[in-house]
């Protein structure tokens, strides 16, 4: 199976080069890139799925670098990740067949080249089993996705790309520090030596915490999430689907690999699990709360990636806790929940991003306020988006529910064994998950309702048209995947459970019985398949009875029925901002956190500026960005916009601007050192000499 994946890597690289060469012939370059990408994806998926069942394959080649050789390891965990990314890549390429038409003038060859390299580098990061090459491909992954983020070259995408690359690099540096701490005590850069070497507990904790925050920065969890909602939406939609669905999973994969694979021999501490759970809970709640305030469809979905990463971390955290505390069932179900949600999130987030892409493709704008009424004009996209929304809100028969059910069972099962402090932590996590679930429902009602339902609120929305065949096919593919992962949970769970067992090297505890999913610790069962059948039967019966009554009593459509003298007009319709305002009224404190953090950041920047700036430097004041221009029309959004009531275009997250201005003011202060007069420069040299001579006297 490794050969299949190597084949897919080769195909990706060949296609990349071919699409770059054919850059001028745009249509040819696009088709070559997409078809080649799809072929590579199919090979990758096949290899990944076979790796899920097969034994781990370890290959060590004498690499180009003298100090380390090039080693690949394909174990079930890697197989799962490769398969997920391959499926997403296939959908993205299929989608790109017609979506990339609008990117012709932006250099289709460049997109084809970097997107193929991006997928290849993701696969290689998963496969490679050597610290140096892992870091190389990890950084290449960030670089290639940076180029894709700034492909639009608008001011917003450049800022998003800049923030993304800097945050990715900070994460990369932390991962490098973690790997090298382990390398120093393991004596080599090979992961195989890490596994055999028994690290001192202190080193293991430092390594884990550094790796956790390093990979966390890549996965976009709370302390490092500010780049995600600015970077992912800027990329083309199928690339943001690939990034949100695939790339942030590499962060989770990294954490699992460091914790279970590399530090496996040394054993973990309970504190690690608690840290992961607390950050996971915080990410999930803050992610969904910030998503509610968004009126841009793709940044709403990006914030939801933060939320779902939080849910995955809850599962992984329970797994780590169970593994460290020696509770095999808790570890098993925790990892099962984390990995299963990882797969599910990849599928439904990819689907939602592709849906958002179709809306963008059809109407030219991502601003929900000016859309509306697209369901009738774009039925397929609306249906797929609805299934995606149901899945992400964890509504029963679909896959989101299954993984969140396992997460709940894991948390409750772990709480049963835990002591006083741990029960409060798990209770906090369960409540956070419940709040997240409820808010996710609200958010996706807003997203789907305001975008697809009711009447079109602008000319752009009115003359939208259904997206072309390949785009719809890609969306339908992912919808089928979501439904299959939901209803077919009974078949998929043992496979994912086996990976969990493989990671913790513990015997596999059964998670399914017949058609039902079983949670042994909490003695409870659920069966999405039977549930779906029951719902279909009961709801079908009600619908049939109702339709029969309609036929008998008559059914007519009336565009403007008598509303007791009340005439609704455009200015009264509900908007995303209405939902946001309502939630903000109740969720005040959670919004307070972001506001407080931004204010603190600005205060520090102003302090630095006043302390360092000499009188003649004019203080840099960040002018609030002008409100985004919505499509014309008399909809309430335009009227609010004109009167400045509507929320202005989201100013760049104040924290990042304050950091930049702080760095600039420190630079200005340093530059005062070089006043241009070379005589003072000579005094500096004499000063340095005197300082070091004094140092000698000190040392001796």
């Amino acid at each position, binding site marked *: 199976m490794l050969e299949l994946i190597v084949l897919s890597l080769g195909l990706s690289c060949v296609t990349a080069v071919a699409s770059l060469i054919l850059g001028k012939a745009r249509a040819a370059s696009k088709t070559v890139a997409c078809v080649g990408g799809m072929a590579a994806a199919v090979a990758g998926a096949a290899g990944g799925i076979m790796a899920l069942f097969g034994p781990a394959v370890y290959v060590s080649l004498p690499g180009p670098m003298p100090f380390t050789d090039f080693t690949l390891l394909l174990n079930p965990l890697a197989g799962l990740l490769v398969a997920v990314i391959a499926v997403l890549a296939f959908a993205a390429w299929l989608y790109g067949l017609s979506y990339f038409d609008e990117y012709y003038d932006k250099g289709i060859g460049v997109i084809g080249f970097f997107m193929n390299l991006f997928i290849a580098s993701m696969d290689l990061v998963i496969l490679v089993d050597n610290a140096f090459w892992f870091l190389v491909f990890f950084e290449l992954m960030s670089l290639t996705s940076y180029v894709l983020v700034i492909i639009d070259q608008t001011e917003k995408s450049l800022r998003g790309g800049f923030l993304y690359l800097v945050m990715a690099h900070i994460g990369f540096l932390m991962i490098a520090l973690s790997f090298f701490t382990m390398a120093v005590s393991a004596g080599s850069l090979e992961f195989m030596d890490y596994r055999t070497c028994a690290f001192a507990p202190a080193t293991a904790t430092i390594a884990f915490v550094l790796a956790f925050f390093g990979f966390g920065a890549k996965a976009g969890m709370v302390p490092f999430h500010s780049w995600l909602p600015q970077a992912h939406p800027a990329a083309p939609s199928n690339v943001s689907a690939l990034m949100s669905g695939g790339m942030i999973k590499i962060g989770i994969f990294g954490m699992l690999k460091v914790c279970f694979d590399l530090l496996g021999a040394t054993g973990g501490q309970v504190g690690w699990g608690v840290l992961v759970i607390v950050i996971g809970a915080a990410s999930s709640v803050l992610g969904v709360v910030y998503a509610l305030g968004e009126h841009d469809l793709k940044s709403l979905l990006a914030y939801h990636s933060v939320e779902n990463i939080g849910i995955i971390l809850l599962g992984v955290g329970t797994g780590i806790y169970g593994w460290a505390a020696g509770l095999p069932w808790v570890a098993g179900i925790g990892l099962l929940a984390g990995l299963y949600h990882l797969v599910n999130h990849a599928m439904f987030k990819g689907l939602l991003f592709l849906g958002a892409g179709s809306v963008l493709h059809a109407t030219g704008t991502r601003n929900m306020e000016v859309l509306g009424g697209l369901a009738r004009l774009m039925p397929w996209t609306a249906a797929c988006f609805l299934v995606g929304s149901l899945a992400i809100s964890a509504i029963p028969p679909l896959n989101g529910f299954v993984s969140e059910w396992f997460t709940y069972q894991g948390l409750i099962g772990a709480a049963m064994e835990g002591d006083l402090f741990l029960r409060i932590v798990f209770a906090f996590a*369960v409540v956070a998950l419940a709040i997240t*679930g409820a808010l996710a429902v609200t958010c996706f009602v807003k997203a789907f*309702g305001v975008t697809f339902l009711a*009447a079109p609120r602008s000319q752009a929305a009115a003359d939208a048209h259904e997206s072309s065949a390949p785009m719809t096919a890609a969306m339908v593919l992912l919808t089928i995947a979501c439904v299959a992962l939901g209803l077919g949970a009974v078949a998929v769970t043992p496979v994912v459970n086996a990976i969990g067992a493989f990671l913790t090297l513990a015997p596999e505890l059964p998670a399914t019985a017949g058609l039902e999913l079983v949670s042994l610790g909490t003695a409870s069962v659920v069966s999405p398949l039977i549930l779906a059948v029951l719902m279909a039967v009961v709801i079908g019966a009600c619908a049939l009875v109702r339709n029969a009554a309609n036929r008998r009593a008559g059914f007519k459509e009336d565009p403007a*029925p008598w509303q007791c003298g009340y005439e609704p007009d455009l200015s009264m319709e509900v908007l995303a901002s209405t939902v946001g305002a309502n939630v903000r009224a109740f969720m005040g404190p959670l919004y307070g956190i972001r506001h407080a953090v931004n204010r603190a950041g600005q205060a520090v920047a102003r302090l630095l500026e006043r302390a360092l700036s000499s009188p003649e430097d004019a203080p840099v004041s960040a002018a609030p960005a002008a409100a985004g221009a919505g499509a014309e029309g008399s909809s309430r959004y335009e009227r609010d916009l004109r009167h400045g009531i509507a929320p202005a275009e989201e100013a760049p997250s104040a924290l990042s601007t304050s950091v930049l201005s702080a760095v600039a003011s420190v630079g200005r202060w340093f530059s005062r050192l070089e006043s241009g007069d070379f005589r003072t420069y000579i005094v500096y040299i004499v000063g340095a000499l005197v300082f070091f001579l004094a140092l000698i006297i000190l040392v001796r």
Partner: protein
Amino acid sequence: MTVIIAVLQAVLLVALAPLVSGIARKIRARMHSRTGASVLQDYYDLAKLWHRCEVREGPSGLVSRAMPAVYLGTMALLAAGLPLIMQACPVPLLGDIITILYLMALPRFLFSLASIDSGAAYPSIGGIRELLVGVLVEPSLMLVLFVMALAVGSTNVGVMAEAVGALSAYPAVAVVVAGVACAMACYIEMGKLPFDLAEAEQEIQEGPLAAYSGPSLAMLKLGVSVKQLVVASLFVAIFLPFGAAASLAPADLLLGLVTYLVKLAAVLLVAAVIENSVMRVRYKLLGRYTWFVVGIASLSLVFLVIGI
């Protein structure tokens, strides 16, 4: 065998729902010292509506058409899953607390979608408020069920009922406090007066009903009253399981049915009394009440953790 009981339960609840709301209206009338409509008034309304010609609004699409059926169907399914007559769940896979909570989320999801779909302002505002009640109530409900799961050792409602029935749930005080919190949460979820007036069609909370007519409206009104019944019986099933049939003997089942009806009547009587002795609270202040419920739920968690 248990499947039949489940179906029987569902049918029973669906049938009883209009009667229950009729009784509640009769109690209110009595308290206002007026005779009020007959107890069976709801049945007459439903029958009348059932024969009316339905009018679909202009912009509303497939979601609005499907919503009433999904609402009633899901509520019936939930009714089937609860351990009302028997102490154990008739259909175990419907009995898990997470499945119940997230099954209740589906009708709320589609109810709000349909309200936005109608395009008019009042239904949309009503739909959003329905969502936000969910956001405010669900976490405390989940915390209560979490406490019960830890107390009982399983997340299945039937096992909880048996444990409470046998008074074997370990931290007794925690269970009692959890019961109180669950009662308040269920009361808010039922949409009774201080928080919302279910009947008034034009009222904000039930605004979305304004977009419906004919058989759909009938099915939706039935669904809403079944929901109130399901939420009440959820509380009854977990915290007042006394008298429910332990075994499948017909005698026990009959006794279980009778005790369940008596308990339900008692609970609804208390609810009706509370409902008619309070004024309606402003929507903005709803948060203060829900924080109070969260407070009590976390109190039960503290008791559980301390172990008394």
